[in-house]
């Protein structure tokens, strides 16, 4: 038995708490409203995905990646497909590559919409959440057109995509791109620059540049700390080096660089950039095959490879060892949310209970990815 300090109150935030974004359990040691220490306990969702990978064939593991980060299934599919393709060393048709970029960026928008919405709901404003859901519905319709699913999209396959984009998809996507910028403006009006919202987030949970690097933080959370690091720019995959887009970084507009407001705002900016990318891709989409020739029974040559891709939450990496059989010998998944959560106890020291909610929301963690 550990000695319990009676000056403090120990409360469990989660696993069923509405703001722990899934099944995170935080053990808070609080002095009234002030949090003395927070310990994240994970593992409530553990599914042994990495072990499952060793039991199924290479293509069979693709649907499991949908469930990694269920708000960005396309991006997870893509990262896995890129990993296997790198070992296979095959050429992907250009049309397939561009379709993949379109899907990845649309999924980035839809993931950021949920991040925006759930964060606003954490902050007590429920209305923007429904606005985010409303726009995501549009993207869900698009994804339903291409793959029939509305949550765990399983569209990107090893070698390309599962089937060509249907008729009317391009027009409908263009319609979305026309409609979306006005909505981003609306989000800024209703929430981003709202005085109460800014007051809640500015200078709260500041991650300095050094801390961000030390803890291996990636994605919008890293960029909010002022580091211009985006794998789409630094290690371009697919056709990203041909595209014209900006990488927004945190400037401390409302307070310090790397505070919760900066992290929130990164996602708003990135949605705009993703919409730009989708627009360019639609214009350059050529005719051609939507998939490379991949054998039914896929034997991946012996070797090991680490491939990473820029997911909505940061760097998703797959470390794959193949022994030349039809199944992976070992698959290690580097999930961005896990690293992003690791800094949490550091940030949570000495803040108030309400700030804990702001911190979890601004880090935009997703538990299925952490627990795997």
């Amino acid at each position: 038995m550990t000695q319990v300090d009676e000056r403090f109150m120990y409360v469990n935030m989660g696993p069923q708490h509405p703001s722990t974004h899934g099944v995170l359990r935080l053990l808070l040691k609080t002095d009234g409203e002030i949090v003395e220490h927070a310990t994240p306990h994970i593992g409530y969702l553990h599914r042994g995905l990495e072990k499952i990978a060793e039991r199924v064939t290479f293509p069979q593991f693709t649907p499991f990646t949908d469930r990694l980060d269920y708000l960005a299934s396309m991006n997870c599919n893509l990262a896995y497909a890129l990993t296997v393709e790198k070992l296979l060393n095959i050429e992907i048709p250009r049309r397939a590559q561009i379709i993949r970029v379109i899907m990845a960026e649309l999924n980035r928008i839809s993931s950021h919409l949920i991040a925006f919405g759930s964060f606003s709901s954490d902050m007590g404003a429920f209305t923007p959440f429904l606005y985010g859901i409303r726009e995501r519905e549009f993207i869900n319709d698009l994804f339903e057109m291409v793959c029939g699913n509305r949550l765990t999209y399983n569209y990107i396959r090893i070698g390309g995509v599962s089937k060509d984009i249907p008729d009317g998809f391009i027009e409908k996507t263009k319609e979305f791109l026309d409609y979306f910028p006005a909505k981003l403006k609306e989000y800024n009006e209703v929430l981003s620059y709202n005085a109460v919202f800014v007051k809640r987030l500015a200078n709260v949970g500041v991650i300095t540049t050094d801390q961000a690097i030390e803890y291996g933080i990636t994605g919008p959370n890293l960029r909010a700390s002022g580091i211009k690091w985006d794998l789409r720019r630094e290690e371009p995959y697919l056709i990203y080096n041909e595209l014209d887009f900006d990488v927004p970084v945190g400037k401390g507009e409302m307070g310090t660089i790397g505070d919760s407001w900066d992290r929130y705002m990164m996602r708003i900016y990135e949605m705009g950039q993703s919409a730009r990318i989708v627009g360019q891709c639609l214009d350059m989409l050529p005719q051609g095959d939507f998939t490379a020739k991949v054998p039914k029974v896929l034997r991946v040559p012996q070797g090991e490879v680490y491939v990473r891709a820029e997911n909505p939450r940061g760097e998703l990496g797959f470390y794959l060892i193949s022994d030349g059989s039809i199944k992976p010998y070992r698959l290690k998944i580097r999930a961005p949310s896990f690293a992003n959560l690791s800094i949490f106890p550091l940030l949570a020291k000495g803040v108030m209970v309400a700030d804990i909610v702001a911190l979890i929301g601004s880090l935009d963690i997703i538990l299925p990815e952490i627990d795997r």
Partner: protein
Amino acid sequence: MIEFVNHIFSHLINSLPITRLLVVIGIMVVASIIILMFVLLYEGLATYAERKVAGDIQARIGPNRVGPYGLLQFVADGVKLILKEDIIPFYADKWLFVIAPYIVFTSSFAAFVPLSYSSHVYVADMNVGILYILAISSVVSMAILMGSWGSNNKWSLIGGMRAVAQIVSYEIPTVLSLLAAIIITGTMSMRGIIEYQSGGLGIFRWILFNNPFVFLAFFIYFISSIAEVNRTPFDIPEAESELVAGYHTEYTGMRFAFYFMAEYGDMFIVSAIAVTVFLGGWQIPFIAGLHINTWLRQAIEIVVFMIKIFVLIYVMMWIRWTLPRLRVDQLMEMSWKYLTPIAFFNLIGSSVWVALFNGKGIYDIFRGLFIH
């Protein structure tokens, strides 16, 4: 109306002592049932209105299945809440837990008594009307603390402590703002205050326009009254995304409904005070001096009074579905650093105004300049 009732029962009251007692008790029971019916109907419709307002703001429809336009939704909700299992946590302090919601509801209900709905429709004309309402509605904080302590839940306890801190803090600017207005009228009776505001086309002698200090006091009062009734952006005692509904986490079914009804009851009360003290109560704008049938006049006055109240309630709902929630320390800061000093300033300013201009408002002074 009360005079009429009194007249009918007057000879009964003046007969035998025992009959007199029974008659008085009878009148009290009937009167409370009438008020209760009114309160319950209002609260039902207010929950309906809240959902429709939320629906409008969030670009969705709101209830539309039960009854025409979903108007009977609140009846269905009532039935559902009655049928729900009544859960009392095993380790709860049962007595406190059970009684708390009733105290909350009773204090909200009792505050309806001194309101003056029209020049002849009122339950009791107390010469300390406002003081009575402020006193009786302060019981809420105690009852909330009872319920939160009795729940034996740490989140509830934090919610209860927050509620007390908040309600006690915001009571001060509320009372000071009302005092600024009461100094002008020289009475605390609800009827007296409204009658003071007669004339001036039924709008220009509203205390709101009496002098610049009370104009400011109205806004201070309105802001702090939103905090008094625990609604967003000041809903930190329940804060569903932080404290998982705070003080009423453990309550189910009808016990929860009593808390809920008390909130809507309090919204009515604070709006009614604002209307009575600042917005001329049942004074009919622009046609106040018109000679119309007494009964029709009463009806119009009631409608006008209600419309003014519902406009304020609508503003509260509108704010709730737009703004994020403040943090507890920011909330305290707002009360103690901003609202309370401004309220003191208003009180002094208003007193000086009354002393300088002999109790005349801006309208009277201007009138005095042009009409001799």
